[in-house]
């Protein structure tokens, strides 16, 4: 690990026995491994009923009639509720944000009322004593549909001949953004080579092990709704549930214990979840909804599905003069609520060309409606598109002028001493390390030796390729992401820490845990700053009644924002403890420190008093303290980045692949990542975040695709036909780091959760094209299936 910038002063993090920067086991491991986690899917409450949704088999249809008479007579059925009936307790919503100028969408209901707009949209809720009984009854609900023409292909969605999905909106264009910086036309004119390509990205989704799950419990006596849900943003769910059910936020409690994976899938408000809250209110009893796998494929947000034209201009010496893109994406029939479905395209515009010095950049992004499942933010929103387009173009330019892919990047990546500076789209960078990262990865992979291997194997008809992809990643977002657009999504997070009566620490944080280690990193920070061992720190998260107000865990923000709040809150607690200790010990706070759960002398390290004993005095014998002393052994702090709207991180990935040119199969031989997330709190957690992210990116590169037919039917909504990446096909992934802490916070941590996904597909695509160099074919479409590769090679 090399450090290109060290914090000048010692902070609370550099204390003796610090856990920061150490791989320590996650405190929640035993709970998870011994099967004692609390997943919503497993929850049972007294009088709890189960809901199954009858879902539309059509992509677009009018609902002529719904006859539920037979279903209502089925054994175990409690109620059959239609969209019209549910509308009495819940209002519709529109997924727009005011800072995304021109973004439009239509009102969406919890259950479709007179029209269905995608295959899988719910048309009725069947509530019964078990899920099986509800499914039995669902088969007896007779719905008459009048099929309407479906808008399936995003490329023709804007054609005049294509029906408009929501006539009130006038057309199928949800959002358009154009950006023009520098002097693009002159730059292309001055280029020695201009290369163009069209990049195609399959629609895919984030397959969570535990599907979306919610138990809603309306307590009429308290006039309070408790929502148990696997979510990344409990306070956002609280706000929105309250808003649409006509409640005050205080009447809604959201509890989120263990979550079986989220990846951005569980940060949105889904119609069926809203319907479940409303059903509980309507039927005055706990209602449980757990999406099954088929429902997950048909209703969990999808992502990507872009078709992006790109153009790059380059001088013979490798200098990149300009980038231009024209991106098109289809988002389903509604913009998702409340984060909207325009963010991904917006990110693509923001991020293209981001690692490079070239300032000439023109972009257009269009977001269109279609009759397919909704699309929204999934891990590394927009990044894989921007990275694949940028890095694909850079490789094409290099190929055109006959320059090595590493060399062209070395010549164009922003220099490490050029910061602060801005991207071609105007985003501000505090401190990145592209050049150091590239140098490091070239070393890690032994680039020259690989090139020699490649050449030797070529002679034997074995076609291997190397792909490089530099990237930037948006992390630690401020209010610039959602808040400024009017969404009630908090960008600040809060942490409360208190010393209990035996000298242990209770820490309540507003960030959430979905497997990435939020609990662990919070305990590491609190333990380090306070001077107590981690086993003395209990972290409570995921409960709007119990934690400070905050955003939760998404957009790679948990460690950087929630971690800093934990650090600052613990500093206050530490000071308060030392103040009391000084009184008890007739010393001064400056002469004292806390190490290993006890107060000691700074001067000689001598033991003075156990925290346990100090807590006993404060809580049980305050009468022994001098008059007027009111100890405060609880502290709360909140944090939000104020200087930069986003803490950008950077990194580079490399892939080494072999293409079987007879079969079109790609074998992933090895993958490398160097990334810079600033201060590393727990190296193992960071590395595994990177690896997990890479695997999801490799899934997009080779396997994952939601395949729709021309009538808008999803044809592979199961885990046999939708191919998630599995360990057997995954390469070893070596991870290295460069460390440039952010100065926005004392902690210095930026995010790391999405870096892996951002660049993996770009690296693999570049590697495949490198392998296929002798065949004079370029593939710019993912997933890179055998069918795609054999077709490109002209073998079939």
């Amino acid at each position, binding site marked *: 690990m090399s450090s290109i910038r060290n914090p000048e002063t010692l902070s609370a993090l550099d204390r003796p026995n610090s856990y920061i920067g150490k791989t320590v086991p996650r405190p929640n491991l035993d709970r998870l491994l011994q099967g004692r986690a609390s997943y919503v899917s497993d929850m049972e409450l007294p009088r709890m009923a189960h809901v199954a949704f009858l879902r539309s088999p059509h992509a677009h249809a009018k609902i002529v009639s719904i006859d539920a008479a037979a279903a209502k007579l089925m054994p175990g059925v409690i109620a059959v509720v239609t969209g019209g009936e549910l509308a009495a307790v819940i209002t519709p919503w529109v997924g727009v944000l005011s800072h995304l100028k021109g973004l439009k969408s239509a009102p969406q209901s919890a259950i479709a009322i007179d029209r269905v707009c995608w295959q899988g949209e719910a048309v009725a809720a069947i509530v019964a004593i078990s*899920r*099986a009984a509800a*499914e*039995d009854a669902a*088969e007896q609900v007779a719905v008459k549909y009048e099929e309407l023409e479906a808008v399936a292909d995003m490329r023709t969605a804007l054609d005049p001949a294509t029906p408009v999905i929501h006539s009130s909106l006038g057309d199928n264009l949800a959002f358009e953004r154009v950006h023009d910086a520098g002097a693009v036309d002159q730059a292309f004119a001055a280029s020695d080579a201009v290369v163009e390509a069209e990049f195609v990205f399959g629609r895919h989704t984030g397959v969570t092990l535990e599907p979306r799950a919610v138990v809603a419990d309306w307590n009429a006596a308290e006039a309070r709704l408790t929502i148990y849900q696997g979510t990344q943003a409990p306070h956002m769910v609280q706000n929105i549930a309250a808003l649409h059910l006509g409640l005050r936020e205080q009447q809604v409690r959201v509890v989120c214990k263990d979550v079986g994976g989220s990846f951005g899938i569980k940060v949105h408000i889904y119609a069926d979840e809203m319907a479940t809250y409303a059903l509980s209110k309507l039927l005055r009893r706990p209602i449980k909804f757990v999406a*099954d*796998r*088929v429902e997950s494929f048909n209703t969990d947000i999808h992502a990507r599905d872009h078709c992006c034209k790109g153009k790059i201009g380059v001088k013979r010496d490798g200098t990149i003069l300009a980038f231009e893109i024209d991106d098109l994406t289809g988002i389903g029939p509604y913009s998702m609520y409340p984060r909207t479905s325009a963010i991904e395209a917006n990110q693509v515009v923001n991020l293209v060309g981001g690692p490079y010095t070239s300032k000439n950049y023109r972009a257009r992004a269009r977001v269109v409606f279609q009759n397919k499942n909704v699309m929204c933010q999934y891990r590394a929103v927009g990044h894989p598109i921007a990275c694949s387009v940028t890095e694909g173009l850079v490789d094409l330019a290099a190929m055109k002028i006959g320059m090595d892919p590493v060399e062209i990047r070395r010549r164009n990546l922003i220099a490490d001493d050029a910061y602060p500076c801005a991207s071609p789209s105007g985003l501000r960078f505090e401190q990145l390390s592209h050049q150091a990262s590239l140098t490091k990865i070239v070393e890690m992979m032994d680039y020259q030796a690989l090139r020699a291997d490649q050449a030797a194997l070529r002679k034997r*008809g074995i076609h291997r390729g190397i792909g490089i992809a530099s990237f930037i990643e948006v992390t630690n977002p401020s209010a610039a992401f959602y808040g400024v657009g009017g969404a009630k999504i908090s960008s600040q997070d809060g942490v409360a820490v208190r010393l209990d009566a035996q000298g242990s620490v209770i820490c309540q944080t507003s960030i959430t845990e979905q497997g990435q280690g939020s609990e662990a990193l919070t305990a590491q920070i609190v333990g380090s700053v306070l001077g107590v061992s981690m086993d003395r720190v209990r972290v409570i998260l995921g409960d709007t009644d119990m934690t400070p107000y905050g955003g939760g865990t998404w957009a790679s923000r948990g460690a950087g924002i929630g971690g800093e709040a934990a650090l600052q809150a613990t500093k206050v607690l530490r000071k308060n403890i030392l103040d009391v200790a000084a009184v008890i010990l007739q010393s001064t706070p400056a002469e004292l420190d806390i190490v290993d759960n006890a107060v000691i002398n700074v001067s000689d390290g001598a033991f003075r008093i156990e925290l346990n004993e100090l807590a006993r005095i404060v809580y049980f014998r305050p009468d022994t303290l001098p008059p007027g002393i009111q100890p405060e052994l609880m502290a709360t702090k909140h944090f939000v980045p104020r200087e930069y709207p986003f803490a950008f991180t950077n990194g580079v990935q490399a892939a080494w692949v072999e293409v079987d040119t*007879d*079969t079109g*199969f790609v074998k992933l031989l090895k993958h490398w990542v160097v990334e810079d997330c600033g201060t590393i709190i727990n190296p193992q957690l960071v590395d595994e975040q990177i690896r997990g992210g890479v695997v999801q990116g490799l899934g997009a590169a*080779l*396997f994952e695709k939601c*395949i729709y037919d021309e009538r808008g039917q999803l*044809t*592979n909504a*199961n885990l*046999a*036909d939708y*191919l998630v*990446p*599995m360990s*057997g*096909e995954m390469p070893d992934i070596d991870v290295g780091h460069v460390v440039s802490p952010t100065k926005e916070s004392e902690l210095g941590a930026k995010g790391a959760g999405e870096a892996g996904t951002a660049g993996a597909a770009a690296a693999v695509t570049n590697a495949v094209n490198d392998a296929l160099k002798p065949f004079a074919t370029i593939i710019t479409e993912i997933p890179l*299936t*055998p*069918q795609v590769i*054999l077709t490109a090679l002209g*073998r*079939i």
Partner: protein
Amino acid sequence: MKASAFAYARATSLANALELLATHGDKAKVLSGGQSLIPAMNLRLVSPELIVDIGDLGELRGIAVKGETLVIGALTRHADLLKSSHIVKCAPLLAAAVAHVAHPAIRNRGTIGGSLAQADPASELPACMLALGATIVVRGKGGERRIAAEEFFTGIYETKLGPQDLLVAIEVPVASPGSAHFFQEFARRHGDYAIVGLAAQVMRQGDRFADLRLGFFAVGDTPVLAKAAAAMLTGAAITPELLAEASAALASELNPHEDQQATPAMRRHLARVLLARCLATLLNRPDLQTGAGV
């Protein structure tokens, strides 16, 4: 994804199982390893009224060699095929093939009888039966029937089994000295059903083939014994030209489907690649590797 309600009976003897099937006919379904049946029920693709669980019928389990015949009980699990020394010795092709069937957890429950009765055209074991010239032993109302594997598979998920029949055993001729096998499939991920696969059992004579049985799978409604291609390659000196001709013949013997993984053209292409690789491997002739006009 919950199965609709069904009744369940655990058969106490072969006779009891056959009786239950005779009584309930096509309203009943045999439950063996459950690895194909249960997912289909949970997706409500099938909704049998009665499940006849044959898991207790010890007489249907086990692998034995009887003279020149290897007898495999219908209840023999994939995992047992993989472990059995009889299989390695007498039908090494099966051992090679089973490693490609699904994943360990599924192989621990799935059975050879279930796999053959299921008759998924992309399945490994049915093609092996063709290549090995196996006989499928069936018990039904009229007593025992012995059906040649070539006759047994009649369509997608369709066999000569009637609703009242039970597949009880498989008989495979013990591999003779000098025989050799080749197994390879193309699947996107380990354990997936194949896009195209080949299970071949051959007799070599010097640098030629005295006998060549090429069982292709995922190339049509049923596994296909590529007889025309095999005939051209049997007894002849294998040249790249002959391989190219046999490849062309092979392509017209297959009637592959279009699905999300591959077009018919791609399946034919991959089948030709497999044929070339099979010959190159078995004859140790790397020059044939790309000689199939692929």
